[in-house]
């Protein structure tokens, strides 16, 4: 799938930006699903569905923060795999 021309504002003090990368989001969702011992096929299918949802949300927005992407991805992931969604959400708030 092609990457959209959406600007992602990253976390941190410098707030640097990067273009939206479909693969990066897809890989992070797959990793979250695998972390909760989901089978690889299910992880891939879930990541496809979540990415589709996030991309449709992004289409109306030229600029979002990486935190927005995480929140929206978690919202979609909850529908398909609640356990993976929990771990995905917890990633930045574990330590």
């Amino acid at each position: 799938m092609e990457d959209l021309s959406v600007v992602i504002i990253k976390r941190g003090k410098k707030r640097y930006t990067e273009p939206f990368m479909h693969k990066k989001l897809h890989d992070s969702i797959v990793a979250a699903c695998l972390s909760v011992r989901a089978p690889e096929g299910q992880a891939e299918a879930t990541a496809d569905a979540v990415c589709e949802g996030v991309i449709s949300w992004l289409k109306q927005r030229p600029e979002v923060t990486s935190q927005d992407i995480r929140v929206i991805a978690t919202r979609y992931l909850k529908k398909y795999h609640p356990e993976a969604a929990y771990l995905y959400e917890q990633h930045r708030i574990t330590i």
Partner: protein
Amino acid sequence: MDITVSLSIIALAAFIHSSFQLSVSVLTLLSGHTIGAKKSHAKLVKLTTSFILGVGTMTVLLLSTISLLLLQLFGPKPPQIVWASGCGLLVGLAFLVWLFYFRQEKGTTLWVPRSIAHYLTERTKATKLSAEAFGLGLSSVFGELLFIIAPLIITALVLIQLEPTWQLIGLGMYTIISLLTLIIIWVIVCKKHNISKIQRWREANKNFIQFISGTSLIILCFFVYAYEIIGSAIGGI
């Protein structure tokens, strides 16, 4: 102070040390990342074992260094003012733990500097080799030094009064007990249980963990105060 009392104080201090959560958080993250990165189960076991060995090594090094420093400063019989200061540190730390240990927000974020938390999160993500996992274990103990310093000092004060053989036994006992929570998580991970269940449990019980850690510090303080300060005063009379 006899051997039984000394070992009891060391065991209680080590139990308090084991209740602190930074290393547990890092181990949970490390396990999650390793499984998510499609690494083999053998690799997962290797990395988590190296991490625990790193934590154990840093605990031994810290406790030995503090013991050596205290021995150089006060000799094998530290004055009561040092014990009283140790008790004061325990009480202060107990209030700190009760009030601030977990941040009042979602998740299990700890009251450690955000730069350290960020560094550990990023390092956990980048860890691929056993040596890196070992180093991560070393740094995670260092990261929670603010909280473990009081039980370490009390243990060191007890250790320097013992015979060399008992010092080694005490050092080993402290290290093993302080690693217990990590060993439990390691067993759960190695048995292929779900990481999210561990994190859910930790999040649901964080107030309880915080309360137990703080209360145990107060209990240790009373224990040490009763034996070392009141006990010596009565013995002196």
